[in-house]
């Protein structure tokens, strides 16, 4: 629920309570006022009838209401004594409504020429159910009107007030650490938003700086490692051919060299990864994928033959992608190398290439890899010592750079799909 509507819903609930309470009070007061006014009218009519009776005695003969609004009959003194005016609500059949309707009845006693008479006066009353219904409708309209006003107010006024807030939200939503570009701050006069802006800005800048530092660290560290690696490797090479060495010593030197070479590969791969992520491969051209796949397969020919891997290639249509040629080669090479290195003797390698995707399927260990980790850096199986664990991370980084979707699934073989 949006912030604005959230506030509105609270308003709506509060208004319902306030308006209901107010309506009850209003109704009681209004009814009181109406009774007061009707009773005053009856009192006045009483006086008028008594006056009239003084002049015209036929008035006293009005025994039933019929067309009139009063009836009079004579009562004994004893009965009349101590009687006070009595106001009552009662029902009476109304010709126009064809129904019993509430009326106000005044029962009073007066003296005329030494005789006592009881007089009953009626006047029509408000119909309370109608009144309540009317009131309810009015209040409903009022309530809806208020809610509508609040909504309009929220959407016009509050929205404007909260605009900087939504701007900050959008900034955060679109913020990408690796792109390191921040949306400009929107000016605001509201102190809280100013503070929020400043805080967010500072936080983003710190994050970007930390990210850049980390990237720079990897790149610098990789660069700095090259020279000592080179010196160590070359010195070992010199040592290995320096004088007649025993086989045992040569073995040791060989083992150290192998590890240094592995370190070198690791270093190169890390450097490559950070270069891809730093978008240092900018130049792009149309790269023909079928050609690239064939060329890469030719490069791996000896290894495929050695492992007796059967290769099937299904690439009938021309697929040309606009990308950096080195990265395209790196993508295909790493995918195929992965399929080769983790293959088994006498296994298979199937490549399907279409305009939609490049699918590489290979035999290997007969259990699926962890889908969530397979592209993570340094994820590798324990058995493949020489692998850097970075090949598929490089594949992922290149795919991310060009907006390709790379996925892994296992069915019969290990399948990697790069969807363009």
């Amino acid at each position, binding site marked *: 629920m949006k912030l604005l509507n959230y506030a509105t819903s609270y308003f709506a609930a509060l208004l319902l309570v306030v308006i209901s309470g107010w309506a009850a009070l209003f109704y009681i007061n209004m009814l009181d006022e109406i009774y007061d006014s009707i009773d005053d009218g009856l009192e006045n009519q009483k006086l008028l009838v008594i006056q009239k009776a003084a002049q015209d005695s036929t008035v006293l003969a009005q025994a039933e209401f019929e067309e009139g609004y009063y009836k009079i009959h004579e009562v004994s003194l004893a009965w009349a004594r101590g009687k006070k005016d009595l106001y009552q609500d009662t029902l009476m059949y109304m010709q126009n409504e064809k129904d019993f309707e509430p009326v106000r009845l005044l029962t009073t006693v007066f003296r005329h020429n030494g005789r006592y008479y009881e007089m009953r006066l009626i006047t029509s009353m408000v119909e309370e159910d109608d009144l309540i219904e009317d009131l309810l409708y009015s209040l409903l309209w009022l309530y809806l009107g208020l809610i509508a006003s609040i909504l309009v107010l929220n959407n016009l006024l509050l929205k404007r007030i909260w605009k900087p807030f939504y701007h900050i939200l959008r900034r955060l939503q679109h913020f990408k650490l690796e792109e390191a570009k921040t949306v400009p701050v929107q000016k605001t006069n509201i102190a809280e938003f100013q503070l929020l802006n400043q805080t967010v800005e500072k936080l983003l800048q710190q994050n970007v700086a930390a990210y850049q530092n980390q990237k720079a660290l990897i790149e610098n560290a990789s660069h700095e490692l090259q020279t000592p690696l*080179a010196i160590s490797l070359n010195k070992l090479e010199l040592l290995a051919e320096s004088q007649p060495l025993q086989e045992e010593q040569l073995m040791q030197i060989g083992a150290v060299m192998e590890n240094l070479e592995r370190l070198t590969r690791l270093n190169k791969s890390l450097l490559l990864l950070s270069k891809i992520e730093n978008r240092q491969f900018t130049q792009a051209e149309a790269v023909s994928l079928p050609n690239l796949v064939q060329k890469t397969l030719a490069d791996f020919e*000896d290894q495929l033959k050695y492992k007796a891997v059967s290769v099937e290639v299904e690439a009938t249509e021309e697929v040309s992608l606009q990308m950096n040629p080195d990265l395209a080669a790196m993508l295909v090479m790493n995918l195929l190398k992965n399929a080769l290195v983790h293959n088994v003797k006498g296994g298979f390698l199937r490549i399907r290439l279409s305009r939609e995707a490049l699918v590489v399927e290979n035999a290997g260990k007969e259990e699926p890899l962890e889908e969530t980790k397979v592209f993570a850096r340094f994820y590798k199986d324990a058995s493949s010592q*020489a692998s850097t664990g970075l090949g598929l991370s490089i594949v992922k980084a290149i795919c991310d750079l060009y907006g390709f979707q790379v996925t892994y699934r296992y069915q019969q073989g290990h399948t990697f799909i790069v969807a363009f």
Partner: protein
Amino acid sequence: MKILVIEDEPEMQETLVRSLQQEQYLVETACDYESALEKVGLYAYDCILLDINLPGGSGLEILEELKKQQKTEGVIIVSARNSVDDKIQGLELGADDYLPKPFHMAELHARVKSVLRRRKFEGQHLHQLQNVQIDPDKHQVWVAGQELVLNRKEFDILLYLVTNKDRLVSKTALAEHVWGDYIDQADNYEFIYSQIKNLRKKLKDHAAELEIQAIYGIGYKLVTA
């Protein structure tokens, strides 16, 4: 053959010098921009190994200076930066080759020899070792005047080993040279062995006076029989 090594890292420089001296080159050194500029200005070399990051200036500026002076030295850039831009810029400025650090000495020697061969003999140079003659451009091999037919990989291996004769060539160096950089991370180099085996057999059948020795744990060494 006179070679100038321009390298600021003393250990690296010393290693390069020692390895090059074993190939009977006359090696001189410079360790910063100023001294390098002075040496290339005063003397003539057959080949220059040039580091790009130098105290006092960039190796690329030295390349520009060489171009300005119309010097014909063969230049191999040896850099730890391994940047595509440096490589392109360096080659555009007239460098012959670009070798990213770290590298194998065998690879350096192959590159140096290739540069020297192109510079000194305009490509008209055959390798002659005992009774074996190799034409690197036509990819042909003769043993005692009789042609020895090799496939591309076998030829590349032979040429690489001949270039580094009497020196230890590691499996990785050989694999990277013959099969390309992509070979790294391959879990073993056993597939190389089958090619070596074929090559040995062909050499033996033709009574070539060369022998490819396996140096256990490291790689191979080509020696004259």
